[in-house]
């Protein structure tokens, strides 16, 4: 199938295909990190994860509207501020949800699934009421939307590079928070043995709230970044939720490293197959592959060795 192309064409296509795979990887990591923290560390299946992402997207939309109306001179840099605001907004909503709803359900993990699914419906309808049923167009600063020509044929999409850097930055930050900070030690202690953690003086309720808020905040940042590559509408969150769960479950629920490894595996498999097969077929094969691996390793790629 490659006979009709020159070597340099093939090389550049493979290079670009590699970049496409890396971008998909970064997108998966951004989507899944927030969920992995919540699911892995707290055992809460957050079905409203996509809606927290879209909250971030809407915050970005509002920020862009504000800047173009009042601060047009600074428009090119609004995106950074928008991401910070998205983190804060989604994090605050997360803390509120945890306080109002989830903390009453920690003993009933299956009920959190129903409750957060209900929450996702409520949020969707709230977005529809506030922002209208139609998708909104987020105007992006020009510097984010172009491509960077590496050679004549290889062009790197700048928004893709941006997503990659963001994914790297957030993963590192979360890693440091989890494994090098006092709060991280507390989270891991609570995961391993909740009553004991409480007994040694860790405020487990506070740890839970912060963990949930952090996970939601990261979802908000991801949603904000995805305005560059996707749509912003009341139900856009649903577009991401299946892939997100796929990545987290495949990686092993309690392991952040597993999430990253699984995001890498799935994204590379999918983008390679998309190149050789059609889109729908590659999706089918990816899902089959994941099902097969999960049959062999029900606990996911990486699992935490804890005595329960």
């Amino acid at each position: 199938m490659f006979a009709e192309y020159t070597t340099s064409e093939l090389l550049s296509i493979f290079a670009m295909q590699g970049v496409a795979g890396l971008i998909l990887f970064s997108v998966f990591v951004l989507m899944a990190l927030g969920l992995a923290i919540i699911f892995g560390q707290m055992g809460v299946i957050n079905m409203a994860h996509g809606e927290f992402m879209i909250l971030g997207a809407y915050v970005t939309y509002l920020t862009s509207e504000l800047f173009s109306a009042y601060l047009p001179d600074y428009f090119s840099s609004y995106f950074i501020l928008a991401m910070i605001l998205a983190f804060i907004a989604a994090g605050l909503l997360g803390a509120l949800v945890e306080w109002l709803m989830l903390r009453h359900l920690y003993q009933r993990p299956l009920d959190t699934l129903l409750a957060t699914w209900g929450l996702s419906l409520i949020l969707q309808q709230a977005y529809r009421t506030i922002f209208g049923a139609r998708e909104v167009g987020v105007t992006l600063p020009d510097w984010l939307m172009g491509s960077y020509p590496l050679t004549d044929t290889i062009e790197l999409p700048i928004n893709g590079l941006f997503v990659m850097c963001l994914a790297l930055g957030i993963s590192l930050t979360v890693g440091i928070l989890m494994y090098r900070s006092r709060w991280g030690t507390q989270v891991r202690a609570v995961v391993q043995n909740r009553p004991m953690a409480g007994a040694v003086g860790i405020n487990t309720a506070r740890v839970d709230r912060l963990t949930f808020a952090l996970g939601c905040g990261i979802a908000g940042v991801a949603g904000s970044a995805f305005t560059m590559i996707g749509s912003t509408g009341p139900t856009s969150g649903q577009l991401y939720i299946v892939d997100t769960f796929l990545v987290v479950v495949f990686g092993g629920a309690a392991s952040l490293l597993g999430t990253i490894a699984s995001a890498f595996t799935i994204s590379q498999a999918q983008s390679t197959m998309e190149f050789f097969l059609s889109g729908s077929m590659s999706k089918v094969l990816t899902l089959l592959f994941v099902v097969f691996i999960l049959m062999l390793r029900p606990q996911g790629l990486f699992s935490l060795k804890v005595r329960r």
Partner: protein
Amino acid sequence: MTTTVRHTHQPKRWAKSLLGLAASLAFSATLQAEVNTTGLAVTDTTVKVGILHSVTGTMAISETGSVQAEMLAIEQINAMGGVLGRQIEYIQEDGASDWPTFAEKSKKLLVNDKVAAVFGCWTSASRKAVLPIFEQYNGMLYYPTFYEGLEQSPNVIYTGQEATQQIIAGIDWVVKNKGAKSFYLLGSDYIWPRTSNKIARKHIEKLGLSVVGEEYYPLGHTQFNSVINKIKLKKPDVIYAIVVGGSNVAFYKQLKAAGIDMTKEKPLVLTISVTEDEVLGIGGENMVGAYAAMKYFQSLPNDNNKAFVEAFKARWGKDTVIGDVTQAAYLGPWLWKAAVEKAGSFDIDKVRAASPGIELTTAPEGYVKIHPNHHLWSKTRIGHARADGQYDVVFETEQLIEPNPFPEGYQ
């Protein structure tokens, strides 16, 4: 959600002029019997119709415009004196983006409410879900969306274009005016894009030109980098895109980010799925330079359309945009009114018999006429996307195109 809205009442002068109550009753009874022999919800002063679209769920994004257009048409008809002297009252039901709900609600409209006509449905799936109900209970559906064809029901009037009308004219135009020789067909993975691309492929091959790729992505797919790389490798003259919904936004944003500047037309992007409504979500700056083939654009310069756009914005806000389907939805109530008046009756069978040949010279798209196969004769236009989210109409077919829902040699 059920809302019954009653519009301005105009007391009938003839009623007052009658001498006695008994006489009046007797007279109205015969009048009633003439225009309504099958027990529809028609009184001496009102007639009930249904509006059945999704106002919640995924499809609400698309269907809102259709609801607005149908309400506007009904209000305008009422202001002109209604249909056969009767004010139209509409009962709005929500299909909730769920096909069984559409079926259930259509049954409710036909059996309980006994509406004289229903304006509604958007996706082919919802139409297929209600079709057996409309045929069983003999209702009349005015369906606004451009769709894949391969259907012709005595109980449906299709006010949007069927696939051949939209596709063939568009491809002929890029071949003739842009010298296109090779095409890359791309679509979301369901019946409409697949059937449409089948027709497109047949036509392209008939012209002796080549299809260098044909691909489908699941609905809601958000990552198009791989296929964009493939397109870059194949270097087609035209990307023929039938991507829908949220995927649309992802596709055009990623196309731009990958360095494909659509204003350079190398490759040229031709779509049949992006109306002004969708551009709102994609952002005009990400769509500029693409071409769309459909029958209506908001920027059409004729007087009918200017009046329609003005009325629509006055009714629903100055920021609203009007896409192809919204205009087609607006035609529904007017076509129904014309058919009822021609038939002199609200009876479904008589309205159906009167429908073929009904013309509308006041249509925003110009002029339409109902074909015996229940689709509309219409022109097809090519729009060139501007940065502000509107299209410049760069071409329109000279003749009305005959609807051909079962194209021979294209299946």
